[in-house]
């Protein structure tokens, strides 16, 4: 059973976004997405300072089953990436919403978060398959 969190926003391509107190946002992939991929063995993250355009490919995950692209849910600048994921990709399977974040972004337009799905809408998307 996948976990969904009310304090997150979601993209249709299964990324989550969390607004932080300083106005930056954390980005990761959802519990549903990591579960579908299975054991993750490699993650390629963007470089700090990269400008990301919403919908553009920003990271790659390799699992024992498949490789999958990760997309920027909003536009912005990459402020930080989670180096622990590169050392131990399995963090993503164990803690997709806490330890398994991919990158911290400074959004170009903070109001763009409103365009993303809330928990209810994302749950419907997943349950519709």
């Amino acid at each position, binding site marked *: 059973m996948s976990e969904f969190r009310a304090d997150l926003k979601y*993209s*249709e*391509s299964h990324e989550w976004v969390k607004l932080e107190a300083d106005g930056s946002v954390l980005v990761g992939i959802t519990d549903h997405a990591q579960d*579908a*991929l*299975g054991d993750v*063995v*490699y993650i*390629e993250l963007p470089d700090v300072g990269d400008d990301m355009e*919403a*919908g*553009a*490919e920003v990271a*790659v995950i*390799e*699992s*024992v*089953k*498949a*490789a*999958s*692209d990760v*997309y920027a*849910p909003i536009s912005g600048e990459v402020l930080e990436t989670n180096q622990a994921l590169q050392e131990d990709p399995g963090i993503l399977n164990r803690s997709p919403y806490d330890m398994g974040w991919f990158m911290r972004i400074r959004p170009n337009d903070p109001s763009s978060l409103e*365009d993303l799905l809330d928990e209810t809408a994302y749950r419907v998307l997943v349950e519709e*398959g």
Partner: protein
Amino acid sequence: MKSSKGHLTHIATPENALEDERTLLARVRSGEVDSALSVWSTNNALVVPRRVLRNPYFDHARKRSEARGWPVTVRDSGGDVTPQGLGIINVTYAYCCRRYPSIEESYRVLCRPIIDLASSFGHVADCKAVDGSFCDGQYNVVTDQKKLAGTAQRRSRRHGQGAPAVLFAHALILVNANIVASVNAINHFNRDCGQPTTIDAGVHVNVFDLAAPAVTPLLEDVADSLYSQYFELLRSV
């Protein structure tokens, strides 16, 4: 240099063969086409996923492999080290869809024509792991407990939020490969990378080994048969 016999395209340089795969995926992702299919082979090479680039001995291992006649090139799908060479047929396709099928369903679709191919020679095949095989995984095509084909997939999308999904799939089929030489090349490379994994040539089988000598098909006939089946498959997705 490329040459074709029927639907089988031989791309002499492994690097170019992998670049053609990237182009195939890019054409579907860009919206130029909704699906694309290629049945191809290339010369001797080892193909590795990106994670292998992180191995501290990779450059050393790559140079030594190349010196042995097995250049190393990088692919964008996951898995582990795989061989290429004459006698190995690759099927690569990509298609656009509203939503992805499950990973398991995608592999079932990818494996079906290869299972049917084994069946056409009187051998029952299915999908499972084979201890000691190269790039082992749950979705090898296996007959008589031996690996006949390996598979991989990459999940991508067209550009933009809410854009359609694009599924890229690849199967590597041992048709008339030099399995012993291929496995030796992988084992040398793994050792040079400091990896203890040893691959066992004896747990692999060629399509040609499934056929009675009198009815062994030509490599191009196998390629044409696979092309037809995957072409029909892509029409139905």
